[in-house]
């Protein structure tokens, strides 16, 4: 196979990382959803590429699942939710953006030097990208920490899932089919429950600001 493929995959990985950073820095929910969709698309592309390069048919399937879930279904759901609850406004973060970015960069470095020694051992052609996957996971984790509204938190959670998917693809050509399906099912159910919760929270607290969800404490 040509080195081109490997380079392309690395490129896609880089885009993925960039998108995560963009999400951290992004203030508006709508564009967050767009970024998330873009992330999904990149993920699909990467999966297809790996699948094509290594002739692993089941990667096509998982790519299909990803497409269906992360590119079409979930974004649609999110769009409807924010339309129904009309929460298009800007999201103020708990920590200001530049600080977040700096921390993010530190995280990326951390992730890389964690992943470097072990990614050598991988049999995958995309082995170099394991660090990026880890970085994506950590970045979305941080995003969940810094956001104070329900929807962005959910998006952070989902992009963490993306990172994991990408890790699976890059490190091991994806998980066995059963597991892939199971995970996909969980994600689907999860997002549905999220959707339901949004409405309940909204009707209980007439806001999606999770700072209302701080009653249960140990006083």
């Amino acid at each position, binding site marked *: 196979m040509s080195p081109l493929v490997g380079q392309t995959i690395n490129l896609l990985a880089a885009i993925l990382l960039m998108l995560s950073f963009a999400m951290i820095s992004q203030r508006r929910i709508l564009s967050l959803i767009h970024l998330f969709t873009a992330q999904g698309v990149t993920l699909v592309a990467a999966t297809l590429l790996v699948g094509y390069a290594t002739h692993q048919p089941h990667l096509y399937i998982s790519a299909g699942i990803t497409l269906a879930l992360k590119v079409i279904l979930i974004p649609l759901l999110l769009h409807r939710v924010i339309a129904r609850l009309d929460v298009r406004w800007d999201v103020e973060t708990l920590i200001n953006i530049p600080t977040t970015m700096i921390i993010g960069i530190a995280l990326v470095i951390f992730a890389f030097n964690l992943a470097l020694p072990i990614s050598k051992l991988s049999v995958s052609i995309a082995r170099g990208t394991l660090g990026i996957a880890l970085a994506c996971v950590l970045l979305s984790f941080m995003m969940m920490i810094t956001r104070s509204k329900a929807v962005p938190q959910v998006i952070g959670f989902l992009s963490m899932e993306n990172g994991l998917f990408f890790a699976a693809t890059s490190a091991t050509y994806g998980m066995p089919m059963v597991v892939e399906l199971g995970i996909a099912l969980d994600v689907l159910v999860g997002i549905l429950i999220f959707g339901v919760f949004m409405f309940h929270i909204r009707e209980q607290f007439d806001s999606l600001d999770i700072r209302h969800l701080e009653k249960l404490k140990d*006083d």
Partner: protein
Amino acid sequence: MIGAALLDAPARWGHLDWALAVVTAWLLIGVAGVFALRRLKLVARVLFPIGGACGLLLFGVALSAIGAPPEASVLPIGLPSLPFHFRLDSLSAFFLLVIGSVSAGVSAFAAGYFRKGEGTPPGLLALEYHLFLASMVLVVLADDAYAFMVMWETMALSSFFLVTANHRIVEIQRAGYIYLLVAHVGAIGILLCFGVLQANTGDYTFANMRALELSPFWASIAFLLALFGFGAKAGLLPLHVWLPEAHPAAPSPVSALMSGVMLKTALYGVLRVLFDLLHMQVWWWGVLLLAVGLATALFGVVFAAAQVDMKRLLAYSSIENIGLMFAGIGLSVLFSAYGMRPMAALALTAVLYHVASHAFFKSLLFVGTGSVLHATGERNLGKLGGLIRFMPWVAWITLLAVLASAGLPPFGGFVSEWLLLQSFLFSPGLPSSFLNMLIPVVAALIALIAALAGYTMVKFFGVIFLGQPREDKLAQAHDASGWERIGMLWLAGGCIGLGLLPVQFIAVIDPVTRILVGAGLGKTVGDGGWLLVPVSIERASYGPAIFLLGVAASFALAFLLVRFFYHGRLRRSPPWDCGYPWQNGRMQDTAEGFGQPIRQIFEPFFRMERELPSPFDTAPHYRVKVGDHFWHWLYLPVARLVKRLADLIGLLQQGRISVYLLYGFLTLVTVLMVVKQ
């Protein structure tokens, strides 16, 4: 066929089987109590007397087992790799002796004691009571750490439920809470002690622990843990706080058992661990035990002298006696650390003797207060008095216990003090001069404590039973019922017997000291016939029987001669009192007044809150509240510290989901960093 086998089975039973049979009987009685939950008559008149009879049986068994070779048996319950091991050797037999004899008396008393309306239904009380007895027996019999701990905690638990029998009252709840808390923490200490002793062999039998040789470091750890754990149960300073709370709260027969017997199981534990499992002694263990014991004893007696609640007074006096016993153990450890076995045996004999006599007189005192409590409904000494006229039985029998507990010849308490002082007098001869300097001070302290005990007991008896009634209602006080009298007489018999027959009793407990320190007084003690001779007749001797005879003879002679030469005329009249006409009960010295000199002399011991009347009071009154420094200097600060820590830790959980996520994130990063190396 089988019937026949069952019939002649008892013939082939060993002592241990009999002991276990008694335990089973007690458990069955308890179960029966559950079925007769609210039928007071049945429970009181049938179940408790049967339990007392079982106690007598146990007494007999122990008496014959004390000299016999050890017996062991294994029950098919417990942990799979660790079934319950039981073993009956002389040490266990001695404590069985105490448990059996005292419980016999107390059960008989309880048969007449329990009345309606005491919170817990009588049947349940019977269950808890007999479970308590059974667990104490099994503690003494246990031969592996697990069985011991299970029985130990069962003992604590059953006694806790007995203490809180009348749980409507908040103070009683509090008392029970403190009691169980201290007991549980102590139990964890004992647990860890066994953890040290088993030394990673994973074999928790005492046999294995005996076989193991520990390094001095680990041995000392084990010793300290044991001292902590058992000290918590025995009420050593500063773990004594539960005792004066729990004893007044409990029904009197229960206080009698707790004070008379349960505290001794802690002593048993210390002896078992120190002399049997850790067959090595280090001299500073002895010094530590001496110091703690004496501090406890002095503290206890001084507080006892200052109390105004009769059961609290007795509780503190129990603390004092326990302290003396621990001091004796310390001396014995000291001697055996330097290989002076006969001296060690002497000190140990003193301890065991005191265990027995204290068991008798203290439980007798407690049941006595029980009768008073029932007759008058008063625990406050300030509201009692003159009861010797309304309840002569209780008064005269209690007087015996009072004399014994004051350490007066020719009663049981004196013998043990005498032996203890003897062993102190023999102590010069210890290689270390520092210790030799220590000993006289210690002896002086013991003498002082004994004298103070006398003071306390005079206060106790005088204020309750003598003088004029301080309340009118006391005139209606009724004397003890039949069963109560039987129980009290049995216990009184014990006090007198221990006082008059020291030679015979020491001959009985000789095997115990032999297995513990490898020496005993058995040979020399009998030399003087009725004289108690610890070492040799030249060095020291004491013949209570002759002593009593002497006093009695001169008493009788004086009586007769006066009648013979002069007359026996007697005239009754109002008291003279320097011609002061208007006498009433309130003019007598009160309990507070009687404690006043002690409070004055030992002021730093107390934490006193006084309410002095001002000259302008229309209704002037004086109140003094005697508090315990340890409570304010140790326990409350610890509680505060825990609270403060808890508040700090509570900040962790302040409800923000982002912060929670941050915790997880940071933990992840840290762990990753850690594993990276």
